[in-house]
């Protein structure tokens, strides 16, 4: 599965990042290309993934520190 879109969540806390991702995913379906999401270095990628539930498969999270 390739990534076509990127979403900048830098500067956002875990909760705001989840809100932004959920907003970006509105109307998207399984099987569509994943969205690449850049989260700030203070974010907890695991918690974000957990809070996205089944939608987590539609994004690829990248932490700013690991760039």
């Amino acid at each position, binding site marked *: 599965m390739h990534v076509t879109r990127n979403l900048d969540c830098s500067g*956002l*806390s875990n909760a705001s990042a989840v*809100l932004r991702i959920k907003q970006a995913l509105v109307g998207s379906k399984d099987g569509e290309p994943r969205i690449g999401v850049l989260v*700030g270095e203070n974010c907890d990628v695991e*918690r974000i993934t957990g809070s996205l539930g089944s939608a987590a498969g539609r994004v690829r999270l990248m932490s700013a520190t690991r760039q």
Partner: protein
Amino acid sequence: MTIVAGTETIPDQDNPAPKPEAPNYAFDPRDPWTQTFQKGLERAELQGKTVYEVGIGTGINAAFVLRFCGASAFYGSDLDPRLIELAERNLASLSPEHAGQFQPVKGAVSLIDTDEARAKIAKTDVVIACLPQVGDPNDERFSAFREEQSVSLPEGADEQAHDHIAHYYPWAMFDEYPFNAVGMGLNEALLRRIREHAPHAEVVMNFGARIGTGLIFEMFRANGFEPEKIASQIVRQDAGTDISFFVALEGALHGTDLEREFKCYFFADEDGKKRLSAHDAQRLLDQDPDVALYHEVCVVRGRPVAE
């Protein structure tokens, strides 16, 4: 001290203090948001400074800042081109002796997106603004998000009041800015432009703190400004402003591990002691559309942090 409706100036009977012209397409200058903003402006140390107001409205703050805060020059613009003309008229009647210190940027100016506005911002010491922080209920993408959270739009919320753009902004248009997620896209866009075109300028901005001041501070820091709250007041939630945006935000985190980390700040009392989430507030509104709900309005000064 406020310049509105003669609350501080005692008019003499034969020569009553002039009142601002306030047509229905302009943000009401008697609104408590403006009172709070002016408290902050008084504390913002504007003496001798060049000030630019983005979204000038009636021009009430131009008159206030020139008259009571000692600013040396005042620039201003607005997305609604009628308002800069109105501001010019109001300043001429409220404070004629300061009219020469006012330099309007005319036409429809979104944020500072014209050459003239950018040239003036580059000469500005302090940018002031009170811009919309709620996505337009008619915005297609916002509607889709709201529907996904099963939040319905209250009756009449999609009707446009004459001063619609004083309260709402086109949400999807500002989606490149991360804090758009919580209704701050327009404000974040302004902070970024100021960093780019006036890297030494301070900002003084007025906010409805329904998402909490913590998040507002995060936005300042993420954009290179150190925030400080310089005025605050609990005000009544404007009966005409839809809160489904905030309800949808809470709804999107419902049942997740992060649910407790994002709850809006509404209050059931004017002292701001009985806190309500947006959900609670909407439930009360559904029972009684005239119920009194409150939230904080605060003025935040942002000082640029050296890169």
